[in-house]
């Protein structure tokens, strides 16, 4: 996608590949991220890896939907490989995906998704088999229940079918894959019997099965939409209250069902339809009672969460993604300016952003900040690229010196892109630091982990407490507190990465919808 600038973003991606798939995949991935389409033979010379390693790395990445291939134009028997940037970045969001699925559906769907994420691409039977294995400790779920869960995930488009081999594909060296629109979410018939049998026999692999040619993968686009919706619902809940959030969640669902996912503006939904949905949905009584008020508050709000598009059917309401994400991006930028420079700088920033072009004098007067401070903050904001300068020359007469006006303005796409780069950089720094801490203290952490598991086991076996205390003393308290510290730091870094990712999502969405409207 052209909206990504490859500097820090590709660093983050390399780091993710290293972390989840190992150094070899990391190196091949970095090379392809930098260089675009490449054929197999270019890679070993550039990365210094053996051709066998490169082939395995490519196979792993294709399996996990991180790389796509195409027959080269010059030679049909050789393929050109390209990284799918967005999917690599989405590796960082896997825990979020699992949380969302767990919240929307439940544990069995969560496990199904986790298995699919681990396998990359797999048939429905395989996923069901492995999930049942994973859950078998509790011995709760049967394969047919899992099959229904699988269908639910497919119905809501969270998982999608991979393109299948074209008819003559087996004869080609580089197979062509294709899929029709209507097949994308169609779940095939799955034979439960053989799965149940294999489970009973405690097999580790499911053998041949009837739907082995129908392969599924996670649908990243759908998860992106869901993540954006979560942000919007939270925004509604913060601006008004939780009931408004509920209402907004319902309306988002209606829009999603009726609109084209690629368009920047949803199709309008009428008041009556919304009211029906609210009634049908078994919502809280407050919402039913004050439905009118909530709707009005939401569409009159300046954040643009709902726009009134017409009066038919009691009122037509739609959502303009570019407007709402512009507001969200501005809010993020405001918050960043506030935390870095202080509230006076924030006043200047907001003023300039809203008033478009301002002179220095105007700024300090309207913002009511003393001249010297105003100048200092203006300079700071300029230095960090939050403000931009436009110079207008007014050379009227030939005798007077040329006067020039210096106008300050905020060029939003540029500022957003700079901040986005800074976010990627921060994310990368956090990941590197975390990796460093964990590998440096690896021996200590492993020792601690082994000790803990041993203690657990002994406790379970009913060994007396004194012996347990003695064993746990084999590790001095200094080491224990160090392990604590490391875990705490690692957790904080993970949280930091998650929050950075949220900002990244908002800023990226703004840039995406902005480029769509042009």
């Amino acid at each position: 996608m052209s909206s990504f600038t490859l500097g820090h973003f590709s660093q983050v991606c390399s780091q993710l590949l290293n972390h989840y798939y190992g150094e070899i995949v990391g190196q091949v991935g970095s090379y392809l991220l930098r260089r675009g389409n490449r054929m197999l033979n270019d890679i070993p010379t550039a990365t210094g890896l053996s051709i066998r390693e490169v082939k395995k790395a490519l196979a792993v990445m294709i399996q996990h939907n991180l790389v796509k291939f195409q027959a080269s134009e010059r030679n049909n028997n050789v393929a050109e490989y390209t990284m799918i940037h967005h999917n690599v970045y989405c590796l960082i969001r896997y825990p979020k995906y699992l949380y969302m699925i767990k919240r929307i559906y439940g544990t069995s769907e969560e496990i199904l998704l986790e298995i699919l994420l681990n396998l990359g691409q797999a048939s429905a039977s395989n996923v069901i088999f492995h999930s049942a294995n994973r859950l078998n400790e509790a011995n709760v779920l049967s394969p047919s229940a899992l099959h229904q869960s699988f269908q639910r995930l497919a119905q809501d488009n969270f998982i999608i079918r991979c393109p299948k081999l074209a008819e003559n594909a087996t004869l080609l060296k580089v197979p062509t894959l294709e899929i029709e629109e209507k097949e994308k979410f169609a779940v095939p018939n799955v034979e439960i019997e053989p799965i149940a049998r294999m489970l009973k026999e405690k097999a580790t692999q499911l053998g041949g099965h009837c739907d082995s040619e129908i392969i599924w993968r996670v649908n990243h686009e759908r998860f992106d939409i869901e993540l954006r919706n979560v942000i919007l619902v939270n925004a509604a809940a913060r601006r008004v209250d939780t009931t408004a959030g509920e209402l907004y969640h319902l309306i988002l669902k209606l829009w999603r069902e009726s609109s084209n996912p690629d368009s920047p503006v949803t199709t309008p939904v009428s008041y009556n339809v919304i009211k029906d949905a609210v009634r049908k949905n078994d919502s809280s009584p407050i919402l039913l009672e004050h439905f009118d008020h909530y709707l009005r508050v939401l569409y009159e709000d300046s954040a643009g969460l709902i726009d009134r598009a017409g009066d038919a059917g009691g009122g037509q309401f739609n959502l303009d993604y570019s407007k709402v994400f512009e507001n969200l991006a501005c809010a993020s930028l405001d918050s960043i300016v506030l935390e870095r420079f202080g509230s006076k700088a924030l006043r200047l920033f907001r003023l300039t952003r809203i008033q478009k072009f301002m002179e220095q004098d105007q700024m300090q007067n309207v913002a009511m900040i003393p001249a010297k401070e105003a100048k200092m903050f203006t300079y700071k904001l300029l230095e960090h690229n939050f403000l931009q300068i436009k110079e207008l020359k007014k050379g009227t007469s030939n005798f007077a010196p040329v006067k020039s006006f210096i106008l300050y303005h905020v060029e939003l796409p540029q500022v957003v892109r700079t901040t986005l780069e800074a976010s990627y950089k921060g994310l990368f720094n956090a990941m590197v630091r975390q990796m460093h801490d964990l590998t440096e203290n690896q021996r200590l952490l492993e020792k601690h982990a082994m000790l803990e598991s041993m203690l657990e086991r002994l406790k379970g076996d009913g060994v007396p407490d004194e012996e347990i205390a003695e064993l746990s003393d084999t590790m001095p308290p200094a080491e224990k507190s160090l392990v604590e510290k490391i875990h705490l730091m690692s957790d904080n870094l993970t949280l930091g990465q998650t929050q950075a990712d949220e900002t990244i999502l908002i800023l990226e969405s703004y840039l995406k919808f902005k480029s769509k409207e042009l």
Partner: protein
Amino acid sequence: MGGRGRGRGNAVSFNIEQLGFGRGEAGPVSVTQPPPLFPSLENRPLPLIKDVENEYILVTQKDLSTRMRNSPFYLKKSENPSYEKELPVLWNRMPAELRETLPKRLATGNSKVTLNAKKKKVEDPDKIFAKLEKKERNESEVEEDGDGKEDEDDQDKSDDEKVENEDDVEEDLDEEMDDHTDYANNYFENGEAYLEDEEGQDDGEAQF
């Protein structure tokens, strides 16, 4: 220098006032070195959000990392090349060139072999016929240089599809390897992708 500031050239083009500082005050500090690698943090950042979602994410992230690291997809260096488990990857959906790392000398029941066996059957009748004809001619000319005919035979073989050659009956491969070189194959350029494993290391160099 002469053309600037027309008319009365004494006045400069900017106002001191406009620059933002009076006559007596110092100008802005000039930059003498690159900015520090870790600039000091002026304001302390806000605390991290710790709610239910983030707790879940922490646990899941650790779990996921461990699982990924132990999965067969995690590629480590310095694996013993003779003992290698096959990657649990859907090979039939990938370009053929990626599959050639499989230990094909000990042909396990791969779908690849059966595929090529089919291909071989399709092309064989013509080739076999041509070979038989050639062999007839060879046998009739007994005194002829054995090498010359062998070369022709080899040329026949190398003119065939690369794939066919690869997965020919294993005896063929062994025959060629028995001389401890792949000389016969390399003499006629088959392109870099052919028998990649050993020869792949010599990328770029001429093959003799």
